[in-house]
Each structure stands twice: as C-alpha cells, then as structure tokens.
C-alpha cells in the first residue's frame, strides 16, 4: 500500500515538473514533437532509476558511514555524469536499437536537474529503503514522461493556432504549462 501511495503522490499530486519544477529545461526543450518527447521520457526513466540506486548506496555506505555528507553535491553529480557516459557506452554495445532511440538524449541527462533532484530527495528521506527509493525514482520518471508527452501533444496542436506575435513560441507554451499545472492541482488532497 505504501508503494501505491508513493506512486500516486509522485505521478499526480507532487508531479516533478508541474509541482516541483524540476527538469524544466528538457520539458520546454524537447516538447515540440511527440516522438522526441517519448524518447526523452524513456531516457529519463532509465537514467533516473539507475542513478538513484547508485547514489543510494553511496549515500548510505560511504557518505553517512564516514561523516562525509558535505561531499554529497560533488559526489552525486560526478557519479551521475560518469554513469551517463557508462550507460551510453554499454547501451551502444549491448542494445543498438535502444541506443538509437535514446542516443541523442543521453548526454543531456547530466545537466537535467530532475535526475540529481530525485537522487537527493530519495536518499535524503530517512524513511526510504532501497526499494522505496527505486519505486520513487520510477514513479517520478513516469510523472515526467506523462506531463512531457501531454505537453508535447498540446504544443503540436498549438502550431495551428493564430497566436499574437509577441506571445508566439515560448510565452504561449509557458501559459499552457501554467494551465496544465492548474489542472494537476486538482489532484491535490488525493494522498
């Protein structure tokens, strides 16, 4: 039951993009087309889950064990950066089709604050064991993917609208995101 609550809370109530404002750069950057949005969601799910597992072990068995909490930011970002490289190399060798699909999005992962944000949040929560953290990471990735794909399909339709010139592009997209956030506020109180 607690896992169900973690999932509903991360996907709908405290959505990573619309309520916590993490991963805005890819959210506005790759949401112009639905295809790229799907690819990006896949890459985020993959990297976010692995990154959370690895940082969980680092936090619990190295940083906490030797009182090195102040190194958290530096160690996490280095681990994530090298992990992204590693995933890219392994994927290229093991599964070329998957590499083709995720390829161009993988290098962007290092500066995606959603990855680091979820890792810090999952490892910083004292109630979370390893399994909780993994479920939390996957749920957040699903929340990210859901909103990204929703937003991309809305933006595809928006190309056909006659928007005032100064509002064209990013300002209009931001207001759509605001309305989407307003809709997601309706889920508040579910958990």
């Amino acid at each position, binding site marked *: 039951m607690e896992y169900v609550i973690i999932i509903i809370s991360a996907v709908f109530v405290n959505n990573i993009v619309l309520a916590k404002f993490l991963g805005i750069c890819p959210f506005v950057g790759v949401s112009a087309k639905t295809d790229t949005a799907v690819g990006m969601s896949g890459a985020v799910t993959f990297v976010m889950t692995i990154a959370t597992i690895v940082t969980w072990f680092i936090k619990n068995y190295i940083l906490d064990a030797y009182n090195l909490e102040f190194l958290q930011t530096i160690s996490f970002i280095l681990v994530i950066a090298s992990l992204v490289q590693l995933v890219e190399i392994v994927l290229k060798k093991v599964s070329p089709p998957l590499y083709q699909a995720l390829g161009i999005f993988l290098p962007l992962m290092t500066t995606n604050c959603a990855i680091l944000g979820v890792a810090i949040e999952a490892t910083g929560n004292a109630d979370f064991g390893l399994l909780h953290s993994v479920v939390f990471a996957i749920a957040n990735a699903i929340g990210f993917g859901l909103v990204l794909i929703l937003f991309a399909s809305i933006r595809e339709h928006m190309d056909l609208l006659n928007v005032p010139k100064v509002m064209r592009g990013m300002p209009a997209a931001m207001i759509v995101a605001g309305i989407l956030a307003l809709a997601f*506020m309706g889920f508040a109180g579910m958990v």
Partner: protein
Amino acid sequence: MNQMKNFSKGLIKDNPVLVMLLGLCPALGVTTSAINGLGMGLATTFVLLMSNLVVAIIKDLIPNKVRIPSFIVVIASFVTIVDLVMEAYLPALHSELGLFIPLIVVNCLVLGRAEGFASKNNLPSAVVDGLGMGVGFSLALTMLGAVREILGSGAIFGYNFIEGDLMLAFVLAPGAFIGLGYLIAINRVIKKE
C-alpha cells in the same frame, strides 16, 4: 566601453532567463516571493562569478577532453560553499530554497557560461560576464517573485499592503508558469523598441 557592453548584455538583450531560457527550474521553483528570488539570484551570481573566474584561470591547464567534468567539479565546489555558508548564516532562507541550492550545480546557465564564455575569453571579460549574467538572472528572478507576491498575497518583499489572499494560484505552481510567460513576452516588446 567594451566591458560595459559585456556586462549589460545580460540584463535585457541576452537575459539568461527571459531570452536564453536557461536556469528555468530555480526561476520557477523558488520565486514564491521577491526575497526568495533575490536570495536565489545572489547565490547563483556568486557561483557564476567564482566559476567563471576559476575556469578562466585554469582553462589552459585542462586537457580538452576532460574539460566538462573539470568545470562541473569547480562549480560543485562553489555550490557546496554557498550551501554550507547559507545554512550557517541564513537558515530561514536556506530552508525556503531547499533542494534548489544543491541544484545550482546543474543550472545550465552556470555550466553554459563556463563552457561557452569563460573557457574562450580572458580573465577580466569572464569575470564581467559572470557578474552581468548573475545580475540579469537575479533581476529576472526578483521580478518574477515580486509579480507573484503582489498578485498572490498583496505584498512586496514581505511588506503587506493588501490584507488577505488575492489570487492564490499565483503563489502556487500555475502562477510561476503564467507569470514567466508574460515576462518573456514583455521583454520581447522592450527589446524591439
């Protein structure tokens, strides 16, 4: 004159948030009030200035292949300094900004200026650029924070001039997106004139 131009480009013409659309996560996440926006802006300015300074000094010593990881380590060190100093001296602001302090590391603006500007220019230009971009970032965050605070709770910098709640949505998540959308549009109009 050239340095003046270098500094002022970050304010309106190439404003990091409103034009380049970098660092949007903190810009949306912490601007529930003007003072939070200003605090986040100043913290980022410090990191931006120091990382530009260090990157401009060490740029010739770093092999080209490992430059991005090296820049990230430099940035992460200064973010850790900001995090610890803020926790010690400004605990209230530190807990308001929360997760977004360590996330300055992955602010595309900081890495973008280190890689895109400081690693290609001399020391004075890099410092001036860092300062200009930082001020532009702070300006955008403070404005967005002020707009949200005025419309959402009838206050500015914590000074309450209208009692009670106004449009609560502006303090909550939707207001951040809508407020930023209009600020980008306003900046476009100003730039054109």
